[in-house]
């Protein structure tokens, strides 16, 4: 069979292909990743998760900069993990188009250790530290150096139905007993909180450990400790999971599942972040008047609870081409006025203490006193660059909480956490 005469249509296809290839080659240099400098004003790219009204804050700071720099908001995906992946990928590739990074509190140590963010020194450092709450500040520190400026923070509260429970329980045991009593009376009784195998479970564990006075990881972040306090925390966790007060989906619930379940009326208690308050007002207005808040339950009747700090920090990328301007921009973006604005508009609790005293905060944050009280005592999650590793192994070993055997789990966790810190072994 001779194939010397090719079917005509293939020839035109090939030339079409060549044309496409040429077009690609010509267009490639025109592609831009992120905004580039125009004229003389340096452009600072802010990579941050989506925040309502953030653009207003950015505009304010751009005006204040008066031509020294121009901040551009590059929005990252909604989910924290996706945000981290985006940033990590580019930092690992030494991308210089990122200047300011919005980091979750648990990533700061990791990024600092990987040498991806710049240290705050001198005047920048003192300006940031001045007036900022101690808890968030600790999360921005690595090896005694400040690597990020705390932007907003977050702590969980106890939300409860005051029509079912006139006085809030002070401790976990009290809460479980109150719940069981309601169960016996046939009323909504469940204690709703996050129990899926993810970061939220580690936050719950951390809350209990801190309230019990235990330590998971040593101060320098290099050794797994897992002392008696952690065993106590595991005991409380197990009791909670097996007492019959959780809802059926407890081990598959994340924040929003819990909020929705509570709004549907199934629970008497909810342990969740303050965002549920405004959602409750708009989604379930008949239920809202019956819901109020209190401090997170403690373990010991005499010792107030200590809870995990959430929130985010702003850092300057190591590969930024305009670090000096970036530091200035960061200081502006998270100053007291902007923190107040975002606190009221976007529901982000501020990290600067003086903002809480502002009268305008009272309406948006009726719970601000409880938040402030908890923030004063708050406990960060284990401060180690390998936090993601630690979190993954802890979540895996604590799931499901009903299978915890306090002594044995503590011993197993000690080994796994040490391996995670040393970056040995395999993550589940």
């Amino acid at each position, binding site marked *: 069979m001779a194939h010397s005469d090719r079917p005509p249509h293939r020839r035109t296809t090939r030339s079409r292909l060549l044309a496409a290839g040429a077009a690609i080659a010509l267009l*490639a240099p025109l592609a831009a990743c992120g905004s580039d400098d125009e004229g003389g004003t340096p452009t600072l790219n802010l990579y941050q998760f989506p925040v309502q009204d953030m653009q207003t804050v950015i505009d304010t700071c751009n005006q204040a900069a008066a031509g020294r720099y121009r901040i551009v908001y590059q929005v990252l995906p909604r989910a924290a993990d996706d945000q981290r992946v985006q940033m990590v990928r580019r930092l690992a590739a030494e991308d210089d188009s990122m200047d300011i990074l919005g980091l979750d509190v648990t990533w700061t140590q990791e990024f600092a250790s990987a040498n991806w963010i710049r240290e705050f020194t001198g005047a920048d450092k003192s300006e940031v530290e001045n007036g900022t709450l101690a808890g968030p500040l600790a999360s921005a520190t690595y090896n005694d150096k400040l690597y990020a400026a705390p932007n907003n923070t977050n702590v969980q509260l106890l939300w409860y139905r005051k029509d079912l429970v006139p006085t809030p329980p002070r401790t976990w045991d009290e809460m479980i007993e109150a719940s069981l009593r309601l169960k016996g009376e046939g009323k909504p009784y469940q204690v709703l909180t996050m129990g899926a195998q993810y970061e939220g479970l580690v936050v719950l564990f951390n809350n209990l450990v801190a309230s019990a006075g235990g330590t998971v990881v040593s101060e320098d972040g290099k050794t797994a400790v897992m002392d008696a306090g952690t065993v106590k925390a595991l005991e409380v966790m197990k009791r909670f999971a097996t007492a019959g007060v959780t809802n059926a989906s407890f081990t598959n619930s994340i924040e929003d599942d819990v909020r929705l379940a509570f709004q549907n009326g199934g629970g008497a208690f909810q342990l969740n972040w303050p965002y549920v308050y405004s959602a409750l007002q708009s*989604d379930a207005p008949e239920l809202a008047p019956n819901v109020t808040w209190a401090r997170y339950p403690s373990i010991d009747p005499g010792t107030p609870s200590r809870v995990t700090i959430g929130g985010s920090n702003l850092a300057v990328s190591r590969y930024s081409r305009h670090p000096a301007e970036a530091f200035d921009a960061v200081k502006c973006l998270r100053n007291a006025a902007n923190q107040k604005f975002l606190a009221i508009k976007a529901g982000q609790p501020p990290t600067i203490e003086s903002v809480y005293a502002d009268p305008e905060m009272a309406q948006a944050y009726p719970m601000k006193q409880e938040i402030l009280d908890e923030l004063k005592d708050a406990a960060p999650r284990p401060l180690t660059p390998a936090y993601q590793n630690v979190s993954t192994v802890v979540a895996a070993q604590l799931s499901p909480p009903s299978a915890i055997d306090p002594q044995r789990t503590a011993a197993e966790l000690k080994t796994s956490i040490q391996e995670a810190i040393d970056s040995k072994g395999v993550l589940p």
Partner: protein
Amino acid sequence: MPAKLKWGVLDAIVVVFALVPVLWIVSLSFKTTATLTDGNFIPREWTLDNYRTIFQTDQFVRALINSIGIALISTFIAVVLGTMAAYAISRLDFPGKGLLVGVSLLIAMFPQVSLVSPLFDIERRTGLFDTWPGLILPYITFALPLAIYTLSAFFKQIPWDLEKAAKMDGATQGEAFRKVIAPLAAPGVFTTAILVFIFCWNDFLFAISLTSTEQSRTVPVALSFFTGASQFEDPTGAISAAAVVITIPIIIFVLFFQKRIVAGLTSGAVKG
């Protein structure tokens, strides 16, 4: 007529199993945030808010345009290149044929999560990052193995001697190819086109890693940028509405092509 009834029942079963979960998504898209999780299949309160929200900014529309353009171009090029390669593999003999087939399967098998970071690096350095070609090239690459295999499988079944027979009957090479071979190749080509299009349309991993602005962000990635009222709230209603909207092009594409998959067996040309 009992035969029609039998087929009608079978059809109904298929449609129900295929579409009930889809209708659930549609129902979610019409629910208000308050009733989102009341567990009812049919919304108690209907609202068009979710659809209005996604079209409020041109972010979503821009993503739709990107998706349509990138998917169509990738599909077209992948099918063309795949057809050429499959034709060669199934009809011609040349050294390296087995190697090509093996290597293309290899490429399809490697976990894409590991390939994304090096690819990101390359694209950043060559300036392809966040551009249409930057997505089109990987899409073609990962669609080609499936395209080559599918098309080869179908090309092998074609009785190529018919081409010769047609020429002996007086047709030119071009006519012989067009009237005799092309209709028999059609099922394979259109099947491949549908599968490649759906792959490009729904891909998330490459799209989120190799784009960063609306310039080339596609729809699945745009979904991950939708925001709820706060950091913890998923905008489920808006996402469901967007999912419904982006399934429509697929439906159109498939409706258009599905007839042609079976239209291959025309009268006269094929005699077993």
